């Protein structure tokens, strides 16, 4: 099976400046998040994947299709929701989506049907006959999502989808994105400044900094690994407690003041740690089920490639 995105020494120059510096990486997950500070090259990467910019060196592939040489074939698989305003203000919402679906190749009747369905699906059913120019910012975002999904794409590219949305609208949009991802075999590429948006919807993250890959992180594996890592603060017989845990297959590291770090194998559950502690008369005063948040991963990536400038 082709990876979702494959970058090989991808270099993109715009206006005489190199924006992307030889990106190389393979992203196999169905839902990929694109993170990075302002000016990191996220939008340039998306535009290159869509064939809007030609690589000066290297290549970018989406589902095995080269963005430069097979641009048209690739774009026939894509639904794109741009970051900035993108609509035809005088058209009614449903006509606008129908228009876009017809350009994607849907016959008139199907385009009409899908446009209505997409509008109702994103929650704008009541406003579908109003001109798009009269919509609020949040409604325009939803209209952009509707036009991106109406033709049933295989790859959905969302550039800052929650921009300008209030918290309930943002929550609803994130739920929609998750629903779309789960209801079909659609691949998702989501670029956002909001780490939470990416964390809630994506399985893999590509972090860019200054046009270079700072990190590629599989969030699913990261979550699985973190689930088995405990930090404990105990009072009592540490030695017997740790040796019993080691007998169960755990790895323990003992520090001062009763602090213990435990890495548990998959077969051991947390309740067994409590049971051992109770049996050995050890009080567990604090338990930190360590979970590397995406924020930690992002900040680590920023530190590895230079000081994080906190521009997120």
């Amino acid at each position: 099976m082709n990876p979702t995105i494959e970058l090989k020494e991808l270099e993109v120059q715009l206006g005489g400046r190199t924006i992307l510096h030889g990106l190389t990486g393979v992203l196999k997950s169905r839902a990929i998040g694109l993170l990075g500070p302002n000016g990191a090259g996220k939008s340039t990467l998306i535009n290159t994947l869509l064939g809007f910019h030609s690589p000066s060196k290297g290549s970018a592939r989406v589902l095995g299709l080269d963005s430069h040489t097979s641009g048209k074939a690739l774009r026939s698989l894509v639904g794109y929701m741009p970051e900035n305003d993108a609509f035809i203000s005088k058209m009614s919402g449903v006509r606008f989506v129908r228009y876009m679906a017809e350009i994607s190749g849907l016959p008139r009747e199907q385009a009409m049907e899908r446009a209505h369905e997409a509008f109702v699906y994103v929650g704008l059913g009541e406003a579908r006959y109003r001109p798009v120019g009269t919509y609020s910012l949040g409604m325009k975002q939803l209209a952009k999502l509707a036009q991106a999904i109406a033709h049933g794409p295989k790859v959905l590219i969302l550039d800052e989808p929650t921009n300008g949305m209030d918290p309930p609208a943002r929550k609803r949009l994130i739920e929609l994105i998750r629903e779309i991802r789960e209801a079909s075999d659609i691949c998702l590429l989501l670029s956002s400044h909001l780490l939470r948006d990416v964390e809630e919807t994506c399985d893999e993250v590509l972090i860019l900094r200054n046009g270079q890959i700072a990190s590629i992180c599989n969030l699913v594996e990261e979550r699985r690994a973190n689930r088995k890592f405990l930090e404990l603060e105990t009072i009592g017989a540490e030695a017997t407690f740790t040796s019993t845990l080691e007998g169960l297959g755990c790895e323990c590291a003992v520090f001062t003041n009763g602090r213990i770090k435990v890495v548990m194998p998959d077969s051991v559950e947390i309740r067994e740690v409590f049971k051992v502690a109770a049996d050995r008369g050890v009080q567990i005063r604090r338990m930190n089920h360590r979970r590397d948040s995406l924020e930690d991963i992002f900040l680590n990536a920023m530190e590895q490639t230079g000081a994080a400038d906190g521009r997120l």
Partner: protein
Amino acid sequence: MAVYKRRYNPYAGSLTPEWSRFFVLTRYAFADLFKSRFFVLLLILSLIPTLFFAGYIFIANNKTVQLLMQLRSSDFLAVESRYFILIMTVQTQVAFLLNCWVGPVSIAGDLTNGALPLFLSRPFSRTDYVLGKLAVLGLLLSAVTWVPCLLLFSLQSGLAKDGWIWSHLWMVVPIVLCSAIWILMLSLLSLAVSAWVKLRIVATGAIFILFYVPAGLGEMFNAIIGTHWGRLLNFSYMFRLILAKGFRDRTWFLITSDWNEIPVPVAWGVLIFVCLLSLVILNVRLRAREVVRG
């Protein structure tokens, strides 16, 4: 993704052929145009001269009507090449006015709110986009230039009889060719202006300026230098020159000076150059993403 189910379903139905998709733009543009009463009125008005020309042809070929109206055959301008030059001149000027109303908004509406990336992120190229927009103007301007002109030609052929059609069949070529270059130049020029200027009134003004200011500058140049090459900046004059040569008839309302002073291939070259320049402007302006240099 049925409405009542409110869930997402991928599309698995048939797709239209890729080559035909540019016509979606044309269809939607026409639907929008015909919503405007002013446009419908303008279109009707632009076809009224054709009705007069048709009436004239009918009377010129009908002795009974001439008798009833107490007119003599010598009062009539013969329905020959000169008459068709007159029709073409009137209708191409009507086309110019129609183009000034329709052309300026054709691309500007998409650029104003950044809709272009939505078109170009689909299996739809910039060429398809320009073709779709060009087809709107092409069809519209055809409807007021060569189509009515050929209908009048057919009417005359039918009424004149006596083999008139065979002796005048050559006129079909200048009717179609001259209309084609005029339509192409007007359409591309107004699309280029529309891609550059977003306000309708400014864009319409820009089209008028492009036609009349260089012509005036050209005449000034002619007067100062004592040459005739300044007329190359007068696109309407270049078209009239092509028209007159195409119909092999020099008339007072077309060419006011020596009609051999500028060779016809040069006149064609000027109009083709304007078309190419417009295409270059469209190529620069129609980008999914603007790149800032520096």
